[in-house]
């Protein structure tokens, strides 16, 4: 009996994982090889769906665009998130203030993603608050069109949505850095940037790694932000999949999902190779 206890104890979680993760994944892979017509799935083993993914310049372009969104968003959230975390961890001395400011950074997360995105629209629009203000100040004489329904708007929304995912883990690792290490660096003759580069940054790597995984995975899978903020003018893989589901091209959507999944897994694996996040866990 006791020999089976560990198996029994592991069983509930294994069951949950099997039912909610392994089985759907397997279904996804299986369906990606199905054939289909306008209204039905045809169980089969065809490579058409994958051939369509890899042979069309649209999918290549869409994947590249998605990577570009992910890369740019990552770079900006990293830069912003790092300095925000730095400010909270090292500049703000008073713990009460630090907690207060930290909670403040999470305030946008009290509303839904969609609302946070939609809120940008009246702000950035042609006759939006920003354009009207700038015109009112005489800074520009015609509205800035690139502010909304553009890649700029998409990136802006991503940064707005996801910077916190970078701030939190980076802040967490920074808070664990012994301040005496910074003094030790200063004592050894390190300037501000040298301390940052040689001490703080390497010690923040696990946090940066976790934040990067969050941001990259979230952006790679997004479809709502790209559609809303680009005014439907930009494509992302997620959006492409969502369109295919809308048109009931499930096998095509499944094939795309499998490719996207593989790509995201590779990205995460690459990040894990570069950074050992286990220190954080």
């Amino acid at each position, binding site marked *: 009996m006791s020999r089976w206890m560990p198996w029994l104890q592991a069983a509930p979680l294994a069951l949950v994982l099997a039912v909610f993760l392994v089985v759907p994944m397997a279904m996804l892979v299986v369906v990606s090889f199905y054939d289909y017509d306008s209204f039905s799935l045809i169980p089969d083993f065809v490579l058409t769906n994958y051939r369509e993914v890899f042979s069309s310049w649209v999918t290549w372009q869409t994947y590249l665009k998605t990577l570009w969104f992910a890369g740019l968003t990552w770079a900006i959230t990293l830069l912003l998130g790092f300095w925000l975390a730095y400010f909270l961890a090292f500049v703000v001395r008073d713990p009460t203030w630090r907690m207060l400011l930290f909670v403040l950074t999470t305030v946008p997360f009290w509303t839904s993603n969609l609302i946070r995105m939609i809120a940008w629209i009246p702000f950035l629009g*042609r006759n939006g608050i920003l354009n009207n203000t700038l015109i009112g100040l005489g800074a520009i004489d015609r509205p800035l069109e690139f502010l909304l329904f553009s890649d700029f708007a998409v990136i802006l929304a991503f940064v707005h949505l996801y910077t916190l995912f970078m701030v939190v883990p980076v802040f967490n690792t920074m808070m664990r850095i012994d301040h005496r290490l910074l003094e030790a660096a200063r004592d050894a003759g390190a300037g501000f940037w040298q301390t940052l580069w040689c001490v703080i940054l390497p010690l923040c790597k696990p946090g940066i790694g976790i934040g990067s995984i969050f941001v990259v995975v979230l952006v790679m899978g997004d479809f709502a932000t790209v559609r809303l903020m680009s005014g439907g003018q930009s494509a992302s893989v997620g959006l492409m999949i969502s369109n295919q589901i809308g048109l009931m091209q499930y096998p095509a959507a499944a094939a795309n999902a499998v490719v996207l999944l593989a790509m995201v897994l590779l990205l995460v694996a690459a990040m894990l190779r570069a950074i050992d996040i286990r220190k954080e866990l």
Partner: protein
Amino acid sequence: MHETKTALTRRGALALAGAALGSGAITGFPTIWAQNIKDVTLRQIGTGVSGLNPIAEQVKKDLGFTLQLTVTDTDAVAQRAATQARSFDIADIEYFSIKKVYPTGAVQPIDTTRIKLIDKLVPIFTTGKLTPDSQMGQGTSPFSVGFVDSRDAKSFAGKRTELMTLLPTIYNADTLGIRPDLVGRPISHWKDLMDPAFKGRASILNIPGIGIMDAAMVAESAGVVKYGDKGNMTREEIDKTIAFLIEAKRAGQFRAFWKTFDESVNLMASGEVVIQSMWSPAVAAVRSRGIPCTYQPLAEGYRAWGSGLGVMRHVSGLQLDAAYEYLNWYLSGWAGAFLNRQGYYSAVLETAKQNMSENEWGYWMEGKPATAPILSPDGREMEKAGAVRDGGAFAERMGRVVCWNSVMDQDRYMVQKWNEFIAA
């Protein structure tokens, strides 16, 4: 044959018993027949266009049974009808969708001998033409997919028979919406959507099946593409149309693409866009915010769409009786008037007229100036006295339909190319 029918009925009765009694004591005996029709629930799926609660409330009042509405978007209705037909009883579905859904066998044909007002239907649905000498529009016209020869037919009859795929309920003629205060000049053609003067201020809807039709209207108007049948394009025609769109997109003609009703309203109301594909009630919604917006009649004519009620294959027995009651009720006037007042058209005009005031009928259907303020169904003032409906009378609008929303033979190819346009 008789055997099969019995079996079907039996299964239907069981399903019905399940629906009526919930879980529990199903003995297999048709005790259900003793139940009153008031215990019947019809589950209907449809779009927000006609999936409106006042209709369900009126059904309860007039017929006694419950109409349970599920509202989703056009694609999802077709999707669920084709893949999860048993999860509802009535599909409120578009004609171009039924072209794809009917062959799957999810929907049973409607026996027109049980429809009292069948001969009062607007002839668009029974002959394909509004008047004997008007043109039959291109694309998936309701007539072309409206009838089947037999209960088990997988293809459409193409002529009037006693079996209908959908009972028509609502239809309209679509055109471009404009902001008359911002376009700065009269708009008269579909090609005006691509006028460089509106660079960065135009939009088109991003639902491939409908968007491609608007694009075709524009391309034809601009003289870029000549179509054999806009509703069933060849690959070459699709290529040319998409190339035309991509060129415009790269030149920065479009501000955005919209997918939902609300998006189209917001784009127009905020002034981000001054000319775009639009739906009639969206124009009304912009206007109700006090912002001028016109549903502009154009020289080339309208793109039309229509939808109807389909009865799912599994419905039978008392529930089927209730479904026919409901179909007949839909044509009997109240619903028609209700829909006409929102700027749509009802399938039987006579009965709707009896349920509308003279002023309402004159304004909505005859193109006459309103003699008193026109109110929306919820009682808000939509138009002041003296206003005239964009595009004028019913005959003028529906008589100038040049194509219907459609599903093409090259559907899959078209969608692929449309995605290229969006990704470009």
